[in-house]
């Protein structure tokens, strides 16, 4: 007879019958009745009315019956809190039962009864059970503390259970230790700053010992707990790694991944020249590969994590390309992930194989997979230059298949290839044009239109092609409309005579008949530009495009660091920080990788953001666009930024401002308004303009230059022609400008950021007539070098390039030096060079020294300059209060330095505001005896935190500043930055 019979008795009056049976004298009948009740509960029937009758059955020596009653209690106690009290006595009694199984059962169930009234009665039994002689009871009691804490945290603290729980970490039984660790970690998670786990070398040692003895699950609890620890120095880090590596041989994939997490994190602290570092790197590859033989869901988790690991430390898996080849019977989610990793690992050495595979995939049937495979071919072309030709011909083969979605994907990627290798593959344009009619996806249409506009001079019937799109202009998606507008303007600039009508048509469609503010405004800008100064228009719209970066979809480094700390968890699967999807975790501190320790020889290398494979490390990064699936689902919706570095908003906003400023000025300054421009007099204040602020991606001013994909260097070319900017202002225009400034502010431009005045870096007499003066600025999170180049020679200059020597913070140009040529004698050019911090690192003296080499057609010149360290203060440098306090205490006093800032006449609030503009954040302010103490934090691009205490006394122009940092050598430069910021 099986239990399924209990599910069948479902008649009316059932409850009544059950009630009678529950109160039967016969043991067997009682038990049968309880089983029926549980069966009903299981299928979702409400049997709560039987509460008192079921609880009456609780006092029994039949274990099975007792378990069933307990199960019932857990389910219904919450809905019957008053009656649940009836159960308390039995719990108390059961916790004293001679049979450990019953004691454990009682303590396990107690914690699951989430009724506040009951909890206090349970404290005594729990206290006893935590000290029980039987480890089975203790391990169950340990978990019960976490349960109770979840119901009533205060009670648990008051009763001292947390201390008892901490003691259990030293228990002789491995399972008790494991559960105590799990319970404490769980509790600590809701008190992020409680220091509850109190990890120190001694407790770590205990955990590592228990690691060898506990079950696979216990090992995971301990490893996950270890991952929260920050070793004191590289030696401790190494010794923990050595004791964790054997776990890589465990049969349970979850144990392996948790071990990988600890190793990836602690490795960060090991000096790279250490032999052990190399050994560890080698040890990581085989277990990661083996994870791909696990069950598909585990493979998926592994692949999502490998995707992170490959970005963080590409060297680990660089020889393992083959294991990521897709098998026919892989589930789709595994296939898509493998493909992603294949592209990341693609290099000149393996590209032939990769391409052969991708071509194979492109002929499969699964649409999403095929699309991604086609796209991957394009990405290979961009990444591995030597393969570009083969990739293009593969794509052409695929276009010949005429499979609609394959053709569209191919066209989208070919556009990127054109961008990367200008003037190389345009011979294929004819083939592309043949497929014009079959394109029905906005992204593909936009790509094709871009190609036609960009190469209008080589396509005889470019005007016809573009005109054909105009007919259904209003049915197109915004992406296509914007692209069409730009393409036609380009066409007009290239072939003005025959396309005047076309351009008029598109401009009026965009400005008069459209409700889309982005489209309208772009239309207006073109219109004014064209009518005011066609030469300038040409310079702007047909400007040379900056190169697009090789890698795409890279995860932004700080997020990557955080995700590495979460290997194996949902965060690592979603590629999102826990705060993005866990409620109530906003205030929780983001996990960070430890900084390389200060003890080793390589202590001067503060490079935590980008370690490993610097040469392979991509120069730019695209902010994560959410998880892969989301990405695929939204193919049509994503802005066209699949390639190219992130639009560093500041330089581009600046570009837009210059442009607008110039355009509007010249327009307004000249009283004779061009009659055919429908200039709205209310433009500056018109509400539509405000629409931009929340949607910068669509309004990426880069598009003005006819680009697809943003680029950091764009600002430079916009900033270039100052000659076309007359300076006369009148009221509405200045209004317009301030409006635009707001717009810049809206996207996070720190208006108050201190920018030192330009100084001459390279005098003309030392550089054969080239003079460079410059300064550094940080705009919307991007460090840039702003230079004025002056040609004081007698001849034209060209072929500019720039390079940096290794420096303390890995500063490197994020793009080429864009100098508009010909650069004629006596001309001056403003150039903005965006920088990143992923270059090679070498400590400089002074720390903020930068050695630069500039090349032109005449010679190579060298100079050195110093950047204010405040340029490297990042936007998320505001520390949590609690963390600040803990960190301040934690940093040894030897690391503290004190400075005087003299003759500063700001009050503390003004000072605080000013400093905030340069990403020096005030966390707290305290006033003691008329003296304001500002507690401030800032973070450098390499993750080093600097903590400051600034004392400001009313009426005293001399401030005192104390700085604390784990890398005290930065103090001097930080102090200089304070002075500079406060006094300017």
């Amino acid at each position: 007879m099986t239990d399924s019979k209990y599910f069948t008795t479902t008649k009316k009056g059932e409850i009544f019958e059950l009630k009678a049976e529950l109160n039967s004298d016969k043991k067997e009948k009682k038990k049968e009745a309880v089983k029926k009740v549980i069966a009903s509960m299981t299928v979702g029937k409400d049997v709560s009315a039987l509460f008192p009758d079921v609880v009456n059955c609780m006092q029994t020596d039949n274990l099975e019956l007792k378990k069933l009653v307990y199960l019932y209690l857990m389910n219904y106690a919450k809905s019957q809190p008053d009656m649940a009290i009836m159960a308390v006595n039995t719990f108390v009694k059961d916790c004293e039962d001679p049979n450990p199984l019953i004691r454990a059962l009682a303590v396990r169930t107690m914690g699951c009864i989430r009724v506040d009234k009951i909890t206090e009665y349970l404290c005594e039994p729990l206290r006893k059970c935590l000290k029980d002689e039987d480890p089975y009871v203790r391990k169950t009691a340990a978990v019960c503390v976490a349960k109770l804490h979840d119901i009533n945290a205060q009670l648990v603290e008051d009763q001292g259970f947390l201390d008892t729980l901490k003691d259990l970490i030293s228990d002789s039984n491995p399972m008790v230790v494991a559960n105590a660790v799990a319970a404490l970690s769980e509790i600590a998670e809701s008190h992020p700053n409680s220091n509850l786990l109190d990890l120190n070398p001694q407790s770590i040692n205990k955990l590592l010992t228990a690691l060898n003895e506990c079950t696979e699950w216990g090992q995971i609890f301990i490893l996950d707990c270890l991952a929260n620890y920050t070793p004191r120095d590289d030696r401790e880090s190494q010794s923990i790694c050595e004791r964790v590596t054997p776990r890589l041989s465990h049969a349970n994939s979850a144990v392996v991944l948790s071990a990988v997490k600890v190793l990836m994190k602690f490795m960060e602290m090991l000096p790279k020249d250490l032999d052990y570092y190399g050994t560890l790197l080698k040890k990581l590859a085989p277990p990661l590969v083996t994870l791909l033989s696990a069950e598909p869901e585990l493979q998926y988790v592994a692949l999502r994590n490998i995707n992170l690991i490959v970005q963080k430390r590409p060297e680990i898996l660089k020889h393992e390309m083959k294991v990521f080849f897709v098998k026919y019977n892989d589930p789709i989610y595994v296939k898509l992930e493998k493909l992603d990793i294949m592209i990341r690992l693609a290099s000149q050495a393996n590209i032939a194989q990769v391409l052969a595979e991708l071509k194979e995939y492109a002929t499969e049937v699964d649409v999403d997979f095929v699309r991604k495979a086609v796209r991957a071919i394009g990405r290979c072309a961009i990444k591995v230059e030597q393969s570009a030709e083969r990739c293009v011909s593969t794509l052409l083969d695929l276009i010949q298949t005429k499979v609609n979605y394959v053709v569209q994907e191919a066209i989208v990627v070919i556009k990127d290839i054109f961008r990367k290798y200008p003037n190389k593959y345009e011979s294929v344009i004819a083939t592309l044009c043949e497929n014009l009619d079959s394109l029905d996806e906005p992204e593909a249409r936009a790509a094709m239109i871009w190609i036609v506009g960009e190469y209008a001079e080589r396509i005889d019937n470019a005007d016809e092609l573009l005109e054909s799109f105009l007919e259904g202009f209003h049915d197109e998606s915004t992406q296509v409309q914007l692209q069409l507008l730009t393409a036609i303007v380009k066409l007009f600039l290239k072939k003005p005579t025959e396309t005047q009508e076309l351009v008029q048509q598109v401009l009026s469609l965009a400005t008069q008949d459209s409700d889309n503010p982005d489209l309208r405004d772009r239309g207006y800008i073109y219109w004014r530009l064209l009518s005011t100064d066609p030469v300038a228009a040409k310079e702007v719209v047909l400007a040379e495009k900056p190169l697009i970066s090789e890698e795409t979809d890279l995860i932004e480094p700080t997020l990557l660091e955080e995700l590495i700390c979460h290997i194996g968890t949902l965060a690592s699967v979603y590629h999102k920080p826990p705060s993005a999807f866990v409620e109530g975790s906003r205030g929780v501190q983001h996990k960070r990788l430890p900084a390389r320790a200060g003890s080793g020889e390589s202590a001067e290398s503060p490079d935590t953001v980008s370690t490993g494979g610097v040469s392979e490390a991509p120069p730019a990064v695209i902010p994560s666009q959410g998880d892969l699936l989301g990405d695929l689902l939204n193919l049509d919706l994503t802005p066209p930024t699949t390639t190219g570095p992130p639009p560093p908003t500041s330089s581009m906003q600046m570009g837009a401002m210059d442009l607008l400023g110039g355009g509007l000025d010249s327009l307004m300054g000249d009283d004779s308004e061009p009659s055919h421009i429908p200039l709205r007099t209310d433009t500056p204040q018109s509400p539509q303009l405000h629409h931009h602020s929340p949607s910068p991606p669509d309004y990426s001013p880069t598009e003005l230059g006819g680009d697809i994909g943003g680029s950091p260097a764009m600002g430079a070319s916009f900033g270039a022609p100052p000659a076309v900017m007359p300076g006369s202002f009148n009221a509405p225009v200045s209004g317009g400008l301030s409006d635009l400034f707001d717009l810049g502010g809206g996207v996070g431009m720190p208006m108050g950021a201190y920018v030192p005045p330009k100084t001459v870096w390279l005098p003309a007499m030392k550089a054969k007539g080239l003079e460079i003066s410059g300064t550094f600025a940080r705009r919307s999170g991007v460090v840039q070098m702003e230079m004025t180049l002056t040609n004081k020679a007698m001849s034209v200059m060209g072929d500019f390039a720039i390079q940096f020597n290794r420096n303390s913070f890995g500063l490197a140009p994020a793009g080429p030096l864009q100098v508009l040529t010909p650069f004629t004698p006596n001309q001056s050019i403003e150039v903005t060079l965006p920088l990143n911090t992923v270059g090679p690192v070498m400590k400089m003296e002074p720390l903020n020294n930068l050695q630069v080499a500039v090349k032109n057609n005449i010679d190579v010149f060298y100079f050195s300059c110093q950047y204010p360290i405040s340029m490297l203060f990042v936007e998320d440098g505001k520390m949590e209060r609690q963390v600040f306090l803990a960190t301040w205490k934690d940093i040894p006093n030897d690391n503290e330095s004190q400075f005087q800032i003299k003759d500063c006449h700001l009050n503390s609030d003004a000072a605080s505001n000013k400093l905030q503009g340069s990403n020096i954040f005030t966390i707290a302010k305290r006033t003691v005896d008329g003296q304001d103490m500002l507690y401030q934090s800032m973070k450098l691009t390499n993750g080093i935190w600097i903590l400051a205490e600034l004392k400001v006394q009313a009426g005293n122009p001399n401030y005192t500043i104390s700085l604390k940092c784990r890398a005290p050598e930065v103090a001097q430069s930080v102090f200089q930055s304070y002075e500079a910021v406060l006094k300017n």
Partner: protein
Amino acid sequence: SYLSTAVGQLSAPQHGDVSLLVQVLICRNYKGDVDMVEIDHFLPLLMQQEEEGLICPVMSHGNVHFLWIKHNNLYLVATTNKNSNASLVYSFLYKLVEVFTEYFKELEEESIQDNFVVVYELLDELMDFGFPQTTDSKILQEYITQEGAKLEVAKSKVPTTVTNAVSWRSEGIKYKKNEVFIDVIESINVLVNANGSVMSSDIVGSIKLKTMLSGMPELRLGLNDRVLFALTGRDKGKTVAMEDVKFHQCVRLSRFESDRTISFIPPDGESELMSYRINTHVKPLIWIESVIEKFSHSRVEIMVKAKGQFKKQSVANNVEVRVPVPSDADSPKFKTSTGHAKYVPEKNLVVWTIKSFPGGKEYLMRAHFGLPSVENDEMEGKPPITVNFEIPYFTVSGIQVRYMKIIEKSGYQALPWVRYITQSGDYQLRTNA
């Protein structure tokens, strides 16, 4: 935070009126932080994903995340609203399947309903507050039994094993004859491109034990492991370099890490002691050449040549060559030089079976199918040819058990028996079709 809430099991009929027929079969809410009604969102989400052809083992609805696996027609779903350890959750779900299967032979709707009391008991013992606890089914069976009434006495005690460092073996096991059977099984994974080049190949080996030993024996397994031999300076005969090794919980990992000794107290009965992966390029043991010619609206002609690329003394048994055919093919005709070919229309395959395939031999199969004049316009994938086989008394890698030392304090003599098998793993050859 681990599995924060519940393990629910949903049964969903594979085809049919979905949302009405589906019900939660059994669930256990471990933490109470996710409302159990949330599980109602699971199936609609799954259906939506299936429709879009983009299923994913993690789904979310609001704050609730569903991590699921499918077994037979059951979905095992874990829900959480925290940043749970996803790999732990999946490992645990698969462990559930393993435990339930050992308890009830089959894990299916019926066996859950038939045994719901035990299932509840197990769910309580396997996990507490989202933390996996004891998941070794052999040990669980010592105190959670299916016939509760009968075993009242035995059940009323927790085996000390549960909390012991040796949590996989109980004391007091007795056998009249002490023996260990060791199976060394190597699976060959191969991916061959349509042009005949081997894209990837590896060997996944597994050493399985059937332990019938009394007491608490200490075992030590010696293999011709290259690293070990290099470590000890011995260099006799062939050694094998294992790329990665995974061990059962019972093996002392730190010991292996330090001196490559495989030492352990084995679980009783059957278990997988270890698995290993070898990256060396192996010649595909059974080589397939195929020509598949499709004449639209008329016929498909298939020619497959199979060649045994292994020692003449060895024989591959139960060789199955599975060749894909278009789904609308009909009227099959076959000709084989050995074995027999069969058309399996529901899988769109021709299965060519050769009972015994000696090394060095070469066989041929021809197949002819008709195609309808009105063609199926749905795009069909290009499934590869797959091959199944088994070669006894032989390991491709050359791995050997050098010794198995068995020491028990009672001092009995025990005999180890070793058996070697090589078999096909994921063995795929792409075609030109």
